């Protein structure tokens, strides 16, 4: 399979806004001059189900889907969903994950239990795990809705892309009146690692 292509798998829960984050990510990669493809599922899964989004880039990208076991970064918005997709990561890849638990239906109704200590389990297998306190930093940025931008800031540490391109991508994707708090959130996230 084509080796010079890189991939990030975003995982989260429907309603968390992973879609917008993957938009910013694709935008920044396009601005950096890469061929970019992304793929995700809308529809049924948006009612609080698991969501994933594949983003791939390189000189020339064919498949929009990341083959299992080859993702360079697993970028998680929720712990269980990140852990669920661990087999997508390649050896030596990084995990950037929001330190947040959202109970799925079967856990909320008490028929199943939320797995213990997911950060510990991730760290037991993967060397590079960046755990981000997204909620806390979003509050610092002035709006809890900027969590995803905090996470993008943290992710940016694991990618070689100039900071100003990230700012440009945010400008392109975020409505004007929320831009300042999002830029602040991004900076806070970027400092997290």
């Amino acid at each position, binding site marked *: 399979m084509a080796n010079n292509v890189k991939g990030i798998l975003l995982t989260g829960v429907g309603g968390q806004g992973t879609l917008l984050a993957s938009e910013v990510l694709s935008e920044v990669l396009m601005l950096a001059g890469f061929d970019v493809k992304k793929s995700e599922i809308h529809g049924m899964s*948006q009612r609080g189900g698991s969501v994933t989004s594949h983003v791939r880039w390189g000189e020339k990208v064919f498949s929009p889907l990341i083959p299992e076991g080859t993702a360079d970064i697993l970028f998680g918005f929720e712990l269980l969903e990140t852990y669920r997709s661990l087999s997508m990561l390649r050896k030596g890849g990084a995990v950037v994950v929001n330190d947040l638990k959202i109970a799925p239906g079967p*856990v909320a109704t008490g028929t199943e239990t939320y*797995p213990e200590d997911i950060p510990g389990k991730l760290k037991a297998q993967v060397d590079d795990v960046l755990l981000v306190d997204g909620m806390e930093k979003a509050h610092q940025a002035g709006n809890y809705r900027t969590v995803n931008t905090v996470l993008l800031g943290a992710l940016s540490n694991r990618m070689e892309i100039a900071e100003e391109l990230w700012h440009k991508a945010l400008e392109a994707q975020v409505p004007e009146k929320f831009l300042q708090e999002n830029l602040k959130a991004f900076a806070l996230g970027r400092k997290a690692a």
Partner: protein
Amino acid sequence: MEKTILSGNEAIARGAYEAGVRVASAYPGTPSTEILENITQYKGIDSSWAPNEKVALEVAIGASFGGARSMATMKHVGLNVAADPLFTLSYIGVRGGLVLVVADDPEMHSSQDEQDSRNYAKFAKVPMLEPSDSDEARLFTRIAYEISEQFDTPVLLRSTTRLSHGKSIVNLDDPVTGLPEPSLKRDPSKLVMLPANARQRHPLVEKRIVDLEKWACDQTFNRVETGESKVGVITSGIAYQYAKEVFPDASVLKLGMVYPLPKQMIRDFAESVDKLYIIEELDPFIEEAVRAMGIEVIGKDLLPVCGELTPERIESALSGKPVDTDYKVKEELPGRPPMLCPGCGHRGLFHTLKQLGAFVTGDIGCYTLAALPPLGAMDSCVCMGAGFSNATGIAKVLPENERQKVVGVMGDSTFLHTGVNSLMDLVYNNSTATAVILDNSATGMTGRQDNPATGYTLKGGDAPAVDLENLCQALGVKHIRVIDPNDLDLTKKALQEMMALAEPSVVIARRVCMLERRGNAERTTPLFVLEDKCVGCRSCLKISCPAIEWREGAGEKGKGQAVVNALLCTGCKVCEQVCNFDAFGEIDGE
């Protein structure tokens, strides 16, 4: 040319704009919905939601008769509904170019089946193009209009979930100019499909396919990419992208038109390679045609017919070895099924139906989620509009004591899609079944679109809203109750009364969708659980509300207690009504 990144659906909308489309009509359906939602940004296009796919296609056909380029879009199962006009349109052909976009859903991410729409192209004898990325989605849309007018035929453009909802880079082009202005033009021998006229048209249809097949051999949308090895791959659509990953050195015949197939091109290609693979999603559509030409291929003997392809699924199917990954999760993880939103009116209705022991012939919409545990309150779901007619049918054969339990359920959008006909039959043939319309003033499941009962058009303009009570009355329903499904007592009383009647009856459960963006959805103060009152009986967990969580070991006796997530709670109070211990309070109250 300006470069941007677009989804397949956005690119099809762009292609329609570039092709000079004037009229676009659709009924929502994942993964096709965003095509029309994006077309609204192009001022010159009259875009609208139709009540169903058949109507959408017929609107597009009318526009074509007027001499304008037109488009209808739908999901794969929508094409079943629109099949009737499509087959006759194949005989009629077009005046202004007409393209029908059909989006398939291999893997059934959001669908009830994974039918392969390519079969419709062959069945209806119309050409079908299949793009493999967003830029092709834009370009092929343009080309489809040229083909449509050059060969006097409707053209199918097939997408799949991975194309429609995938994004890739697109080179924008300028819109075409110089298209003729629409006008009235009578042409009865072409437009009036009486048997005598249709007999004249049918041979033209057959000739058209032969002509197209030859013509397609010289078109750039069908191309050979010569590789280094003697392995050959024939593929199309998104499967092309996967084939390029799995066979980087092979020669590839990439088909942009999947019907009719360029036979001579295929023969020449097959001769140039030693071993030939056909990589396609779902049915062996290309494969069967190629085999029928007497060419040996490797295809669905190894590759799966069910589900979508991925590069690793292709690799492991061909090698016989499962994918091995470096990291694995060994423990069993709790699933995360989708759930009805907090505050959704469907919850109270289905909770009550379950209490009453109703046999629910359901339908397709957000409310189909009520079939999942712990609500588990739907007993069948076939296709849009079937909820009421299935109820009529089953009630015909049941003994009297069971007959009264039958309740057909569907949403407002589904009712207006094809449910009206089903209710008409229920009334006409005097069924004892009760019909429930879940009126949330939205086509919710597909992302909250408007429909003829919401009072708004696709572009957000005002429209007369269908009066559902009057409509039911006009159909002859004598017993109609309108209730708020969040009021459980009222809901129960109304359902009991209507179910007991030996005559057709309708319950309209009215509560605006929580995703409503115009601020009409009611949100009140969140509730909380009074720790001294909650005995841990778990009754409130049975309503399947995302805002209620179970805390293991909480409470005085350590039996566990419910807690409310105040960020999610909308204050609908359905939980308060199912609690026998007055354990829910309002945050601002006490």
